[in-house]
């Protein structure tokens, strides 16, 4: 049976007078990997920020696990298990790798499981274990991305939302990151993947949404999207 984990209905949001997200509706089912793709400025980051509560929803509904959450502050949304890996990694620059991981588990819900989660994160991302005492700002882009993912896992996500995790990484590292995402998903964590790396993202996903000018232009199975002539032309350069 398909279980809806996150449902968004007619969502509008933006920055003050600037309307960015226009009437967006979408659904994420438990256990899926869903991609959200779209050009620069389409509103992908804004959509994730609205789900996380960093910017307020102007109208519409966001329902997580049967509960309306669009009015909740970000820390409470995180506490529900909706965890975001933000665009640009956003590692705490003055914190060591270890401190960055600890700060990912400050909620009572996760603090109890901290030790186990640290072990699991180090197992999945052994590079972080090697660099435990290194300061965040001195990590390479790839290491920062690993750390951002590890930090999010410390928050024990039910939905992990990744905003352009492959941005600025070498092709080899991009593959590594996608492998890691796949592994995380296979552990039962639902994944929302925002990507410009459309081809690889769609290969990994079951379903996808195409965002254009803040609106859903296309939705469906990853297979359908990847074969769509418009998508091929606009995003895959074919």
């Amino acid at each position, binding site marked *: 049976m398909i279980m809806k984990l996150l449902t968004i209905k007619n969502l509008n949001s933006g920055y003050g007078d600037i309307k960015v997200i226009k009437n967006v509706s979408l659904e994420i089912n438990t256990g899926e990997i869903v991609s959200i793709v779209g050009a620069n400025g389409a509103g992908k980051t804004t959509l994730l920020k609205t789900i996380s509560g960093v910017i307020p929803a102007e109208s519409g509904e966001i329902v997580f696990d049967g509960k309306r959450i669009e009015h909740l502050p970000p820390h409470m949304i995180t506490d529900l298990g909706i965890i975001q890996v933000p665009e640009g990694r*956003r590692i705490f*620059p003055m*914190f060591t790798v270890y401190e960055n991981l600890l700060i990912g588990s400050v909620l009572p819900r996760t603090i109890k499981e901290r030790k186990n989660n640290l072990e699991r994160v180090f197992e999945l991302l052994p590079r972080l274990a090697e660099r435990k005492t290194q300061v965040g700002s001195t990590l390479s882009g790839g290491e920062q991305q690993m750390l951002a993912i590890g930090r999010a896992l410390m*928050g024990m996500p039910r939905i992990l939302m990744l905003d352009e995790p492959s941005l600025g990484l070498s092709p080899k590292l991009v593959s590594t990151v996608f492998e890691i995402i796949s592994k995380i998903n296979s552990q039962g964590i639902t994944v929302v993947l925002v990507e410009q790396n459309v081809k690889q993202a769609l290969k990994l996903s079951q379903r996808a949404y195409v965002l254009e000018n803040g609106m859903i232009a296309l939705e469906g199975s990853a297979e359908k999207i990847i074969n769509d002539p418009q998508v091929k032309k606009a995003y895959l350069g074919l």
Partner: protein
Amino acid sequence: MDSLSVIVNGISMGAIYGLIALGLTLIFGIMKIINFAHGALLMLSMMCSYWTWKYTGINPYLLIIMIAPVMFVIGYSTERFFIKPVLDAQKDVREPIAVLLLTAAFAIVLENLSLMLFGADYVMAKTTVTDATIAFGGVTLSAARFYALIIALVISGGFYLFLQYTELGRKLRSCGQDRNTASLMGIDVPKTFAIAFGIGTALLAVAAITLLPFYYVHPTVGNVFMTKAFIVVVLGGLGSVPGALLGGIIIGLIESIGAQYMTATLTTVIVYAIFLLILFIKPSGLFGSRLEW
């Protein structure tokens, strides 16, 4: 006075400056707000301590455990009820000017309130420590200043460890580095801001009590310390904890050594000159980094 006690006095006064600057640097480091009410809140701490001492006769040093929590609550509430609404209205502004004006106005209100309630008199808590001295290998030191030094060092050190190694300290520092990302971690940023303001204010209570046995209290006493706290904080590096202590001690030493050779006005000139010189050589201050947290 012999030279050793001049130096110890300077270090002791400087450590108090550092202690006062600590709260200023904490509030700036975490909230990116320059709190112009810091001096007035110090004055309020001194007034509260003085009058509590006057009516209860409790040893001023023991008063710390009473006054510090009271000042924490005052700081916390000030943030929650006055600063937060303005901060919320200027959400996307990193260093909001309206908050600056608000704290400046708050300082004026506090000063005038205390003028109304306590009058303009200069008062001092003349306790048994006031005139006591401690002999240390041939040097005699004022006991009150010696205790002040010890307390300032212990509190500054403890505060540094608290920031570095506790769960709350880490939360505070994360908000200072990147508040949006901190909120994504599950941290209640507005509450953490209020706590930061509360702690910054509670540190003033400690400074107030170390000053009490040897420093006159009056409604504008905060101004003297406010200016110095600014110099100390900029000198040590805005947002830096060790910088605040070191900056404080440098200023304290210049003042006390200067006082042996020249008038107070001239020492003030020298303080400013050295301040400008250090800024000229190292604009970010001695320990300066805007990302200190």
